[in-house]
């Protein structure tokens, strides 16, 4: 049975991921932040919330690249990679949605109103619509995968859906904010925020390492799951 790709066994990127995340948490919670009205200390959520979205986009992109590779080479390892990178991407998406909704409940909505009351208004924001759509699409991807019993056909059909969904979805996420009104930072069609202009330089030196650190952690989780799956296969077909 096939071996896991060699980069998955290397230690250096896992260790640097841990170091970057330790730096993110320490510098992110203790470092200086500009105390803007309304945002105040909640801006520290930027190191966690925004990084989740960056990580999700990167992991989904890796997943779709693996899907394309699967269709070209028909190697089962690419299918496994595509599935598990998408899975970790969804985990990040859910965490990003949760951190963002909580943040919005204290900054966009009146904090005195219970979160459950203000949520239906917040969820109408185009950025949140885009986020919810992408999560639903990838949940559908998992349902589609599990509904096909034959392994090869499952891999092929879900790779096709993965590519189709990705190519339709991502332009849409860039388009929607242009046609709808939003409270979210990064107006004028930017799907997340304008890193150069929206973030102070003191925060940027934490933000960039944070994105890399969270992404490396996501890759690590995904590779562990891929390797477990490969080991399971080896166990059943020695």
């Amino acid at each position, binding site marked *: 049975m096939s071996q896991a790709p060699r980069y998955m066994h290397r230690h250096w990127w896992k260790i640097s991921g841990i170091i970057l995340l330790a730096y993110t948490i320490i510098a992110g919670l203790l470092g200086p932040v500009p105390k803007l009205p309304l945002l105040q200390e909640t801006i520290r959520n930027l190191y966690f919330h925004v990084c989740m979205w960056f990580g999700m986009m990167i992991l989904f992109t890796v997943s779709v690249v693996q899907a394309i590779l699967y269709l070209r080479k028909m190697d089962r390892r690419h299918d496994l990679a595509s599935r598990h990178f998408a899975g970790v991407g969804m985990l990040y998406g859910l965490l990003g949605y949760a951190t963002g909704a909580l943040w919005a409940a204290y900054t966009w909505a009146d904090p005195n109103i219970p979160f459950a009351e203000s949520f239906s208004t917040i969820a109408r924001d185009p950025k949140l619509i885009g986020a919810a*759509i992408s999560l639903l699409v990838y949940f559908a991807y998992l349902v589609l995968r599990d509904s096909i019993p034959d392994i090869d056909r499952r891999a092929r059909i879900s790779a096709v859906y993965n590519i189709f969904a990705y190519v*339709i979805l991502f332009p849409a996420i860039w388009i929607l904010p242009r046609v709808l009104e939003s409270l979210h930072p990064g107006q004028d069609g930017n799907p997340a925020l304008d890193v150069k202009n929206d973030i102070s330089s003191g925060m940027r030196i934490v933000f960039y390492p944070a994105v890399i650190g969270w992404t490396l952690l996501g890759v690590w989780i995904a590779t562990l799951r891929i390797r477990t799956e490969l080991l399971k296969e080896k166990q059943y077909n020695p």
Partner: protein
Amino acid sequence: MPELLRKVNIQQPMQAIWTLFKKDLLLEIRQQYSFYGILLYALSTLFVLYLSMDAPEPRVWNGLFWMIQLFICTNAVAKGFLQESRGRWLYYFTLAHPITIVLAKLLFNTILMGLMSLISLVLFRLFLGAPFLDPIRFFGIVLLGGISLSLVFSFLAAIAAKAQQNAAILAILGFPLILPQLILLQQISTTQFTDHSAFDLIPVALLIGLDALVVILSTILFPFIWKE
């Protein structure tokens, strides 16, 4: 039927698409239950709506209208790929290139869904009133909407058919993916309720762009779905 299909020629894609399209049309004419079935579905849904609410506000009208379009589309388009047996598909593939097959299906489904959306617009006009100001222009928007919906759902129906699932999985796969188009369509149509002259070209262009993207993706990805 076999005489018709024997004429399919791989060397002439346009002719192949046309022949496959005629095959679908002929099937539809011979088994009219499906066409009338969708028509009846639209009519009865609308009648339920009509009885449960009288004269909705423009916003509600708009939401209901596009929701009903979505449900009609899942029903109308689903059978295009789901009705035919595996054996018959194998037979088609000995005759024609997969790209011509998918293009013929897309063509057929867009025409079917365009017709269906126009019929349902007339029914909506009769039962629930008309909040739009310019009927001809709204007619065009509805036609564009029907085409957009049917393109996405046609390709997803091919995936669902290959997953050997019923129409339920089509809704699961399609509803989140169609949301961007639906939001654009609702944006375009709400402007038609208030301002006589307002017509924003950008959302329409975006919608047409997305449609083109779906067609291109379908032709690229379809051969992979049908490879056995």
